[in-house]
């Protein structure tokens, strides 16, 4: 009958309406994801630049190099993290996490690396998140880096610490190298207890292996300096085992 026909028509058109809404929802979501991915890539590439800048520290340029690194980091925060924050405004942060986690992890790596070089301490998640607060539009819930991304970023930090330690030893900064060694060990040990509680522990396990390798490389470097230093004590008659590794005086070269 025509009554039935009408019902069918209605349900048909209501189906179309509904799918029109679903289509719009999916389009918006995908577009947003795409913009977040791009913002995340920008954060990554610029955080890497900060890390390279930190690696430029030497015994004599420490202050200026780290100052520039901090300035660069601040501009990553202000320019690129803020764009990420803006893109994510009003979104469920967890829904698009896979789209921005690489950038955030690299950012954590850069920020904690800077801080450690400057002060020898670990930049806490709360401290990082505090710097992100002002970037958010107050009318939305602010984007805060989650524990998982922070921990994953920290796991990568050890690789940079290893590079830093090798370089510092070359320039004779033994105490700094030992400090790095202790710091890297501490992070490794603390993370050991966290691994099984991570949401997805499989990639964290790989990172733990890499981390242990980095820690071992630092330890081997410290070992090498130590045995050499011990050999030199009787030769130099000095008990200051680090003196032999001081920077070469300019006039000697």
């Amino acid at each position, binding site marked *: 009958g025509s009554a039935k026909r009408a019902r069918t028509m209605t349900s048909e058109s209501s189906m179309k309406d509904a799918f029109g809404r679903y289509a719009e929802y*999916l389009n918006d979501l995908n577009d947003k994801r795409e913009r977040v991915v791009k913002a995340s890539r920008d954060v990554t590439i610029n955080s890497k630049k900060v890390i390279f800048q930190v690696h430029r520290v030497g015994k004599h340029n420490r202050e200026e190099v780290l100052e520039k690194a901090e300035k660069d980091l601040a501009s990553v925060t202000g320019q690129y993290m803020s764009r990420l924050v803006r893109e994510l405004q009003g979104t*469920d942060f967890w829904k698009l996490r896979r789209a921005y986690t690489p950038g955030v992890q690299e950012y954590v790596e850069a920020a904690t690396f800077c801080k450690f070089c400057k002060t020898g301490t670990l930049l806490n998640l709360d401290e990082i998140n505090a710097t992100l607060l002002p970037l958010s539009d107050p009318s939305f819930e602010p984007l805060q880096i989650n524990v998982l991304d922070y921990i994953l970023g920290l796991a990568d930090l050890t690789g940079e610490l290893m590079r830093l330690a090798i370089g510092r030893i070359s320039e004779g900064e033994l105490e700094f190298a030992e400090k790095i060694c202790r710091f890297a060990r501490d992070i490794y040990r603390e993370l050991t207890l*966290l691994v099984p509680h991570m949401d997805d522990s499989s990639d964290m396990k790989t990172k733990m292996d890499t981390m242990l390798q980095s820690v071992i490389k630092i330890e081997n470097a410290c070992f090498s300096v130590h045995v050499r230093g011990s050999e030199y004590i009787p030769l130099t008659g000095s008990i200051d085992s680090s003196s032999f590794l001081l920077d070469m005086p300019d006039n000697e070269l």
Partner: protein
Amino acid sequence: PSLEKQFEDFRVQLQESGSLRERIRAVVMEIESTTRLMYASLLLVHQSRPTPELLEKAKAQIGVLKELYNRLAEVLRECDGQYYRYHGDWRSETQTVVSLLAFMHWLETGSLLMHSEAEEKLGLNNSGFGLDIEDYLVGLCFMSNELPRYVVNQVTAGDYDCPRKVLKFLTDLHAAFRMLNLRNDFLRKKFDGMKYDLRRVEEVYYDVKIRGLTANGDPIGEQGNHGES
């Protein structure tokens, strides 16, 4: 000290999240087991014409599901804004739930279960705990996968009007899905499969039509040889 303190905090947080997950898992296992029961009831539609009693039995479980999703929502309420952190833990089961609800709905009404109707049935429309649209859509694809089998068995059982109804429904559903722009993801793959369901139903429809088997005709077994009719 500060370093240890922070990690100690993390450990506590992650452990809480782990125990949350355990609680989610417990509810999800109950959901899974409920859908298993519903599915077992619904399977009988493949063996005979669907009777109201059969549907009644399956529908009785919807209340259970609603209750379970309510519990899930309560669990999630503790961790505000982290719906999608744990989403993966109940995704697949929810897609199955949608497919069953939509199938039952169609059996009863002949029309598509809308997203809002599905939410309503599961008591999800309120608050922050809703039915993810992609899960809903995947659920519809799963339902579509059941239809060719349903049609084949109905015709075998002598219901010759079934193919026409299913074909109409599936044609519309497929047309509606074509409005979406999908990524190369799970939903896309499932939607690709719907084409084959549609084609199979169509084939059955023409098998029936070409042989002049009408809705109020006799069951196949009682007919003469098809060459003769």
